[in-house]
């Protein structure tokens, strides 16, 4: 055997030989041979013709000799072909005798062969008729059964237009779900494990062929409408585990403190239980089961976070609810609602829930879990060719960049899902509060006008609002703009002069701040107006130290003089009680020389200020009134 040779084993094919193919195409196989049959078959293959008659004779004599010896010794047959040889030898003897007889008879010397007279076979016409009839009946039955099969096939093809074939459906299922064959059944997996989930619960389901119960094959042609009106039946039937059946979703809502601390079991509205019918089409059924699995994983993850998180007010996990405090007095409740085809047959009782469901938070919860899945499977690029895969790029660079302890500590910190959701919830709450306060102020204060513009682009934890304060008709004279960043628990306000003011989540702080800004706006506007009217601003103070103490902010004031200097207007703004306007004029009309001031020239000093009855003044708003007042004082 050379070095390049290949071992080839030659074996008989495993299949049996085809003995017969019937008219309907059925193949009939020959039964497999037994050991002895196989042996005889092999024996048949021996070519005896190869041995010539002389050799044969020689052999026969040898065999005879051997046989005699063998008979004498009565030893057991020495080799397996013993019996074959004996039979062959007998047959050879008989054939030799027959050949001898024939050769003798041919010469017609000693032996003559005479034909034996035979009686003719009697013809029975009836038997023939019956035989033909039987043969014809056999042929007819073969034809009929063939026709029947064709009919069935046609009927099935007709039905298949409405209900697809099992294999086609299996192909579709295979395109969307992972399937594998385990012995005789098909098992699928609907879990998110390939997408990066690490949830322990498995989501296996079984695929079986739906039996057609009570659906006779002859009915579809005569009643096509009946089959069309049926719900879409499928040749597939999927069986999902009982804990994944039904419909589930995550319910998120806010709860005011002391509203109800009772841990009521959250339940689904009964309307949605109706579609939990057991024989749904496989696609919605599997999708529903997948959703159940996803919700379960989400809730599981959140509950794990809630237990591990250390917070001043511990998060509570009761039954199928997680209660986390967001802001003082406001709690976030995350519940897992799952209505299955309950085994005990209990119907869900719906509590009259006044709490609205927060769809935005539910969506961001789903998003967070999907991000987590994505992060589990997608490692940041580029990977090092050596070294472990997994740590972030920053962590990998920490060595060569010689990062110190603090930086490394920061890298290890990551926010859990619950923390992120709580932050979003805090932001939503604070945004709503800010919105409410601003709208309320805009409604209450007509002079000046407060307008707020919310930025359309914002992040889940930060949004921004711009506030403009202007007076009606005087918007070119003075405009005060503010910018408020709404974060999770704090507000950051940037005024026009660049001052930054941080406020907490208490809405009263924002309210007071806006009120101060309103009165500051009035003072600035009055001074701008005075400039336009030719009046002179003698003094102004944004934080006035005299007068009654204000509950918030400070009173502000300014003194204006007319172009001739004979008239004075003093304006005092108090955030609490509003605006006071007083006027004085010189020379004063009520000057009477007294004992101390005798000379007439002192009348130019200006007299005491008299308050203007502001509510009786003409004018639409404060600035309009001021304009009219200045105009009248200038002219008189």
């Amino acid at each position, binding site marked *: 055997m050379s070095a390049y040779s290949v071992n080839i084993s030659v074996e008989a094919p495993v299949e049996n030989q085809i003995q017969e193919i019937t008219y309907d195409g059925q193949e009939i196989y020959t039964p497999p041979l037994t050991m002895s049959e196989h042996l005889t078959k092999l024996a048949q293959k021996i070519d005896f013709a190869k041995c010539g008659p002389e050799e044969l004779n020689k052999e026969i004599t040898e065999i005879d000799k051997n046989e005699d010896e063998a008979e004498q010794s009565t030893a057991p047959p020495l080799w397996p072909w013993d019996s074959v040889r004996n039979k062959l030898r007998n047959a050879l003897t008989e054939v030799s005798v027959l050949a001898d007889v024939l050769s003798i008879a041919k010469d017609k010397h000693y032996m003559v062969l005479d034909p034996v007279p035979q009686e003719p076979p009697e013809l029975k016409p009836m038997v023939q008729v019956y035989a033909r009839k039987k043969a014809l009946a056999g042929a007819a039955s073969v034809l009929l059964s063939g026709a029947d099969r064709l009919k069935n096939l046609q009927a099935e093809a007709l039905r298949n237009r409405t209900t697809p074939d099992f294999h086609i459906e299996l192909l579709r299922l295979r395109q969307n779900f992972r399937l594998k064959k385990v012995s005789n059944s098909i098992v699928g997996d609907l879990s998110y494990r390939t997408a990066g989930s690490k949830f322990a619960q498995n989501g296996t389901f079984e695929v079986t062929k739906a039996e057609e119960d009570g659906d006779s094959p002859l009915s579809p042609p005569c009643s096509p409408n009946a089959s069309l009106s049926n719900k879409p039946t499928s040749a597939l039937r999927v069986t999902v585990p009982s804990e994944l059946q039904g419909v589930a979703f995550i319910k998120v809502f806010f709860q005011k403190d002391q509203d109800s601390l009772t841990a009521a079991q959250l339940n689904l509205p009964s309307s949605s239980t109706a579609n939990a019918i057991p024989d749904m089409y496989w696609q919605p059924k599997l999708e529903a089961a997948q959703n159940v699995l996803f919700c379960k994983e989400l809730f599981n993850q959140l509950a794990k976070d809630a237990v591990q998180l250390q917070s001043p007010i511990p998060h509570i996990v009761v039954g199928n609810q997680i209660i986390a405090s967001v802001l003082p007095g406001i709690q976030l409740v995350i519940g897992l609602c799952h209505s299955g085809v309950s085994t005990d047959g209990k119907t869900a009782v719906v509590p009259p829930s006044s709490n609205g469901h927060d769809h935005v938070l539910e969506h961001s919860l789903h998003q967070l879990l999907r991000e987590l899945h994505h992060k589990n499977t997608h490692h940041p690029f580029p990977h090092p060719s050596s070294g472990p895969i997994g740590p972030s790029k920053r962590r990998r660079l*920490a*060595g060569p960049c010689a*990062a*110190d302890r603090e930086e490394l500590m920061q890298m290890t910190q990551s926010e859990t899902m619950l923390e992120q959701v709580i932050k979003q919830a805090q932001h939503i709450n604070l945004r709503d509060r800010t919105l409410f306060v601003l709208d309320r102020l805009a409604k209450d204060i007509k002079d000046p006008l407060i307008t707020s513009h919310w930025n359309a682009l914002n992040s889940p934890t930060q949004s921004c609002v711009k506030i403009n304060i202007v007076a009606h008709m005087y918007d070119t004279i003075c405009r005060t703009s503010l910018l408020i960043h709404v974060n999770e628990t704090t507000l950051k306000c940037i005024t026009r002069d660049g001052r930054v003011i941080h406020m907490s989540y208490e809405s009263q702080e924002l309210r007071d701040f806006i009120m101060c800004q309103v009165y500051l706006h009035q003072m600035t506007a009055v001074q701008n107006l005075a400039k336009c009217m030719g009046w002179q601003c003698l003094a102004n103070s944004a934080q006035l130290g005299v007068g009654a103490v204000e509950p918030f902010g400070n009173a502000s004031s300014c003194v204006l003089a007319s172009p001739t200097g004979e008239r004075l207007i003093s304006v005092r703004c108090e955030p609490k009680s509003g605006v006071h306007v007083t006027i004085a004029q010189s020379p004063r009309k009520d000057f009477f020389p007294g004992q101390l001031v005798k000379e007439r020239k002192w009348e130019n000093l200006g007299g005491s200020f008299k308050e203007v009855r502001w509510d009786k003044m003409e004018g639409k708003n404060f600035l309009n009134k001021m304009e009219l007042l200045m105009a009248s004082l200038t002219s008189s």
Partner: protein
Amino acid sequence: MGVTILLSYPVPENKTGPQTVDLLIKRIGALGAVQSGQFLVDCETFSSGPTMGGPPRTVHVLHNSEQPAAVFALLESPGPPPKTVPLVADGLFDLLMLKMSSIYASKKQTRMEARGTRFEIADFLVKIGTVTMSSNFKGVLVEVEYRPCFIAGNCWELMREFMQSFLGSVVQNTPPPYFQVHNRLNDVYQPLDTIQQYLDHFASYRKVAGL
């Protein structure tokens, strides 16, 4: 990571090393420093075998507990002109050195360590440690870090005053020689500068041992 200055505190003749350290800890404690853990800087020296050819080269591999993820390696090239090639790598470098044991052999008996206590006092970080060479006491090192600043020249006066308050006349009025030799006074301070100061001090302790 701010500017760090490393000083060798001479052990008085009538005192032992631990006594000196205790004295310094007492002094810094009196200033209001708060203890915050331990620190360790170690230095292992590898030298090339005859397979490399040419004059033998030396590689110092240092670890600093302040930068736990990093390994510092300084290759002393004999020159001419003699120069030092610094390298900052991550923890896998240690394993790489083990693989190269046929080329660079470790000199176990020259392994040096500075180990001691870490103190925080306002913006300063003070480390007082004893230096040992293969568990033989060598001396006392004091490391002072001023964290808000990155330029040594800008904060030297401040640091000098602070250091003199508890180290006394040991502190010179001029910046340490390392900054003057390498002209690093007006550059941005880097973690490698700390390591090179340690290496300089370790080298001088070794010379003392040779005497």
